């Protein structure tokens, strides 16, 4: 039952390089995106200033789904190729994705309270986003409770793939649950200024996502390399 994975210590450890500069750039660009979106958009007739919450809420939701899509792709790669670096990328994306997921839910509540008068409603999107967060909290807990890195990689990859498969099913079933009892209203806002605000903020959060995942991956690789050095020394090698 030994692992077929080649030791990761043989490949060079990722360096910080220019990534700190990219991080500063990402945050500055986010400030620019938020300010420009707020300045360009006219106050919405029905919702007043509340529409401005959408410029952080909607891109945060997109970023969440993108992060979990990365988890799905790299989990499949782990099951297929068994490379440890893929596992560490998936884990980094899962942690950052969980943070964005929690933020999305909190922002949705802040928008929902003045708009609908309640912090929470059992709507399909809200409920499936919450279930998604619970699934990936389980994913991260599983990783915390397994010590063997090879086993951790394969098990969490399986959990990641099954969790991703489950998301559309949860969404569909909650939607049926709701629509069988009441009709959903779907307001559509297609103001070009609004679309611009959403898009530029989505790009800004995409940069932030890339930066966070990259730095978490760097830390994970360094830790693994250190562990493997220690193991090699303990076995009397090198």
């Amino acid at each position, binding site marked *: 039952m030994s692992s077929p994975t080649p030791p990761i210590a043989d490949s060079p450890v990722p360096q910080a390089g220019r990534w700190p500069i990219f991080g500063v750039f990402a945050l500055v660009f986010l400030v620019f995106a938020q300010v420009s979106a707020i300045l360009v958009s006219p106050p919405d007739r029905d919702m007043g200033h509340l529409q401005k919450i959408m410029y952080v809420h909607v891109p945060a939701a997109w970023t969440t789904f993108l992060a979990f899509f990365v988890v799905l792709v790299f989990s499949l790669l782990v099951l297929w190729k068994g490379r440890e670096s893929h596992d560490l990328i998936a884990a980094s994306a899962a942690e950052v994705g969980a943070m964005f997921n929690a933020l999305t839910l909190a922002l949705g509540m802040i928008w929902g309270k003045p708009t609908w008068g309640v912090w929470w409603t059992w709507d399909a999107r809200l409920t499936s986003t919450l279930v998604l967060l*619970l699934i990936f909290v389980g994913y991260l807990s*599983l990783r915390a409770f397994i010590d063997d890195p090879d086993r951790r990689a394969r*098990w969490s*990859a399986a*959990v990641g793939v099954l*969790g991703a498969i489950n998301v559309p099913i949860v969404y569909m079933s909650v939607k049926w*649950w709701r629509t069988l009892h009441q009709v959903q209203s779907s307001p559509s806002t297609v103001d070009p200024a609004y679309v611009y605000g959403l898009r530029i903020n989505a790009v800004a959060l995409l940069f932030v996502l890339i930066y966070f995942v990259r730095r978490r991956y760097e830390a994970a690789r360094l830790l693994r390399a250190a562990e493997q050095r220690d193991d090699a020394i303990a076995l009397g090698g090198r």
Partner: protein
Amino acid sequence: MAWLDDWRRVRAIAWKDLTTERRSKAGFNSVVALGVTILVLFGFALGPDAAALRHAAAGALWLAVLFAGVLAFNRSYQVELETGALEPLLLYPGARWTIFTGKLLANLVLVWILLAIVVVVGIVLFQVTVPAAWPTLLVVLALGVVGLVTLGTFYGAMASRSRAREVLLPLLLFPMLVPVLLAAMQASRALLGGDVMHEAGAWIRLLLAYDLIFLSATHLAFAHIIEG
């Protein structure tokens, strides 16, 4: 006849697990007792108004089976882990998924027995009138248990071999079971109420699709999680 060999292996593992359970009845009996106890507690939470009890009966039944079933899924691998019998089992020739299917079948039988007892007790305690469409209700109960047991057996294989298995299995399993539980609860409740809205059919189709998707996905993934 490769598939015949596979089937023989599946049957052998299922039979071994069921024999173990039959010889030491105390374990399974406690699981059933827990299921009934949870039902009684739900009665306190929701009663004593008869109409409210009847309305909530379907949800309470499924949650009682879920909470008691989690113990069965962890127990499913416990015997092998304690006696170190999992490694020899893996050394036998043949496909790895047969181990999973065997354990799945054994758990299916156990949870169906558990469900049958919990349903009978529930009908009495929650003052439920058995609907005319009871054969459809049996289909819902059977399909719901298949979904529950498929993921329970799969995640049990991981959780029971990790530290903190008591908390890890529910944490991984419950969010994954949201669609199957929702569909099973809604279909059962609709059928118990006479299905005046004709919504049970949609839920049964969802249950069936869910079962098929996760039966295939877990069988494909099991080979990756069992070795090592």
